[in-house]
């Protein structure tokens, strides 16, 4: 009897530990969000969005160039990664059993695990060294490389969700495989694929390491793809590690903008997937 009681007590204790670890993990999340929001709100103002950085040591100014830069570099990355990612995802789903598809899956998972700083080195050698010039293009290339495997795997998984009968129906009506895939299967999975792309964008927009020696940084407003360009993340890093109080203030403001982007995208994606799931369960 006592042994049963002991077993039950032990069980309850372990359960409590599990619940405790959930709370423990939420503590840093709460802390990070609290500081980013409280410090960020105090620091953010209209100038942050509309002004350029001022010369070193002068308080004030903003990150208008960095915000535009992040948009440009992420856009370039998407332009490169979406076609490659989606089409290789289609191959992996359509020819799922083949050896090539297996190899692609392995390559995608591998690439996904490569540290972002290593991707930065790769992009430096491929896209900076030959032109002897840091550039927005090189930054977009680095982020694009990181984005490809995410999009490819998401596309593959979503296409596999589309009921086989839909595809077979198209084929039975005499459609070619390409017609069936692009006309029927892909559209059925499209909302999910777009959601996946948005999430991937949110993730790479927060990357710093691959940009430090590809896009580099630029104190001035630039939209040229062949020039170094400023990005939010690199700018936050520069300001956070710098010696000035006002720089720290702006770093917090930049962090708030970054976190809002990520949070907004995650929430949007969450809502979209919930709608999708409901659609799937109904059909």
């Amino acid at each position, binding site marked *: 009897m006592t042994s049963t009681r002991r077993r039950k007590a032990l069980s309850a204790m372990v359960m409590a530990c599990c619940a405790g670890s959930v709370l423990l993990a939420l503590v840093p999340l709460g802390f990070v969000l609290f500081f980013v929001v409280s410090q960020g709100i105090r620091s953010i103002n209209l100038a942050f969005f509309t002004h350029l950085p001022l010369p070193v040591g002068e308080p004030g100014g903003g990150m208008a160039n960095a915000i535009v830069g992040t948009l440009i570099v992420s856009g370039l990355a998407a332009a490169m990664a979406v076609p490659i990612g989606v*089409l*290789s995802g289609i191959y992996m789903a359509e020819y799922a059993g083949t050896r090539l598809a297996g190899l692609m899956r392995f*390559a995608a998972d591998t690439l996904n*695990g490569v540290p972002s700083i290593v991707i930065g080195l790769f992009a430096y050698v491929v896209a900076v060294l030959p032109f002897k010039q840091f550039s927005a293009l090189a930054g977009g290339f680095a982020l694009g490389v990181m984005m490809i495997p995410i999009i490819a795997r998401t596309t593959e998984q979503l296409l596999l*969700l589309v009921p086989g009968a839909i595809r077979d129906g198209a084929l039975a009506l005499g459609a070619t*495989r390409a017609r069936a895939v692009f006309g029927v299967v892909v559209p059925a999975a499209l909302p999910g694929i777009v959601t996946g792309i948005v999430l991937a964008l949110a993730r790479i927009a*927060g990357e710093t*390491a691959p940009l430090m020696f590809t896009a580099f940084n630029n104190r001035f407003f630039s939209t040229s793809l062949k020039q170094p360009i400023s990005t939010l993340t690199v700018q936050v890093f520069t300001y956070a590690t710098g010696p000035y109080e006002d720089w720290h203030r702006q770093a917090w403001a930049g962090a708030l903008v970054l976190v809002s982007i990520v*949070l907004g995208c995650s929430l949007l994606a969450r809502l979209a*997937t919930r709608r999708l799931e409901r659609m799937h369960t109904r059909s």
Partner: protein
Amino acid sequence: MPRSRSRNQSRFRIGTGAFGLILIGIVFAIGIVLTVESLASMRRFGWDFWRTDVWDPVAGEFGALPFIWGTLYSAVLALIMATPVALGIAIFVSELSPAALRQPLVFLTELLAAIPSIVYGLWGIFVLVPAVRALESATPAALRALPLFSGPPLGLGMLSAGLVLAVMVVPFMSSVSREVLRSVPVGQREGAYALGATRFEAIRAVVFYARTGIIGAIMLGFGRALGETMAVAMVIGNNPRVSLSLFAPQYTMAAVIANEFTEAADELYLSALVEIGLVLFVITLLVNTLSRLLIWSMNRSRRRVTTRKPAAVTA
């Protein structure tokens, strides 16, 4: 007609396959490009590069031992702190949590994973490091005599790096192990309960059943921790010295590349940094491949029809 049809088919296959080949090509290209660029350093230093611990770019001396040490030390430290918490979360969410709480918890942990590294770094510098410094100052002198806690209380150092890494790795590890636990057949739990097991005993059976996959999940987290750059570079103190002390500022492979690459003026310096990157690439490749094999072998041994969820952007 049949002929043009089959030509269409193969054109579709080749067209999409070509893009997949780009994906495969990139992985190979990374390995090749980094190897070629680090040849100069390999020729000059050979294996001594990884055995010596003097890093003095001005004098042209490059020994990468402190970086390997710092990378492994910080990752192992993070793992020790993160594993119990991550497993606790995974067990709670997959086995214990009321259904209504499950989705929000999954969402919150995913949110934790989505916060950019640079934000963790910023938080690390201005919030965590001062707290760690206070903790270090409050450490009793008797403890400070131990090599593990020696050195001045700077705040910036191995302990801060380990903590930041642990926070960053937990959500990733818990979401992978949650998936692993989900793939354990219900019969395992029911069998345990049928034998009169308490909740803990049933869960122990489930975890034991899933052990290979869970080890895989932990190793995936290890791979993440090895390659993490910005947050670590901002809090570890960036001092290339091999030290056992948690309080000592140290350095990691990823951090030295991030900090010094743009300053590296001469060919040899650049090449040495690229070689560090190459080794980091190879290590993470091995760790990730091994862990995927573990998870895969577990899923294969007992494949079960699970309902797949859309938008599985978990990695």
